[in-house]
């Protein structure tokens, strides 16, 4: 699993395409944010994590708008 992660990051950075600030209008929209609504997400995760055997893996922010 660790190898898979390292390979994926290297592959992503290897094909780096710089998106200019003036091109990030769409990326900054709430619909495109990784965490859209923390309150709703927490309730949803609690529903699943209490009824499934796995947990975690929901972290992360960012999005090219300098709003992490």
């Amino acid at each position, binding site marked *: *699993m*660790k190898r*898979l*992660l390292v390979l*994926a*990051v290297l592959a*992503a*950075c290897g094909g*780096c*395409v*710089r*998106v*200019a*600030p003036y*091109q*990030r*209008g*769409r*990326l900054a*929209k709430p*619909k*495109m*944010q*990784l965490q859209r*609504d*923390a*309150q*709703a997400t*927490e*309730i949803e995760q*609690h*529903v*699943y994590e209490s*009824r*499934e*055997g*796995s*947990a*975690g*893996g*929901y*972290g*992360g*922010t*960012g*999005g*090219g*708008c*300098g709003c*992490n």
Partner: protein
Amino acid sequence: MRLQLIAALAALARVGHADPDVTASARLAVYSDSDATSVTTSSIAASGNVSEHVRVSAQYLVDAVSSASVDVVSSATGRIHDLRHEVTTGAALGDSEGSVQLAYTYSTEHDWTSHTVRLGLARDFLQHNLTLGIEPALGINRIGRRGGVAFHDEMTSIGAEAYATYTASPRDLVSIGYGLADQLGYQASPYRFVVYSDLRAVREVVPRTRLRQTVTLRWNHHLFDDSALRTQLRAYRDSWELTSITAVAEYIVGLGALDLGVHVRGYAQTGARFYRASYPIEMPYMTADRELSSLVDGTAGATLSYVHPLAGRDVRYELAGDAFGFAFSEFPALRRRTGVVLGLGVAVSL
């Protein structure tokens, strides 16, 4: 409670001479399933700036649980009613290059108390095209038992999630994350017993250590006009040899002040290595926890949100509905479970 949160944040903002930018929200969610379980979750939250670079937040949540599920009935306790209270406070320090976040959560119910501290560090690189972050967390849990023989034990969890988020194009945002968490201590249920052999029953026993790993890939793609496709794929594996995969897809379209979203989620897991549908002899580890058996589940739902100006402020209303189904292939007492989750939310910027 809601007014107190908002007043406290506004007062802090005045002390710091910052634009308070206070937002407040409330949410209600109702869960009901075919296994005689219902959960009503109510939460309120508020956040605001106390200085140019510091934002504080607070949230209060209550879960009201009522259940006569197979799990509960098999432990001879009849229908249970329980309340869980959870308070979270947090502060974030950040600028356009990065952020540091610290949050503390206290949760309590009649037989469980937990303290969790989370730290979040994130920094932008490559002219804000790449965000790297790490989120360590520590949780300390005290477990008890209501009624019957006195029971006390503890469980500590420590872990971190690291992620990289990248702007692959003006329309594409991709993210990959890796999570590692170790749980040490009591991880069974003090109410659950396992029947084996000639109907002898013993208290459930599972290993006291569990190492969890996750890899999560996310891809958000902006489609035509004001719409986005949001996808997520998560792989999970732990030291109990439980493996799972989760796939989520959501499509959101903006129609003026209205946002309409539809989503589907699929999940499948293998059972833990020591899980058995029945135990012919006594074994070192024995469990009757269906969440440790192999299972698949699926969810489909929709959300509708509407922004309406009121007294010069934008108020956002949200209505959400999900329907789900579970299938347990190794849990004879319950082969299927279906249910719904309905949600209602309102948020306002003050």
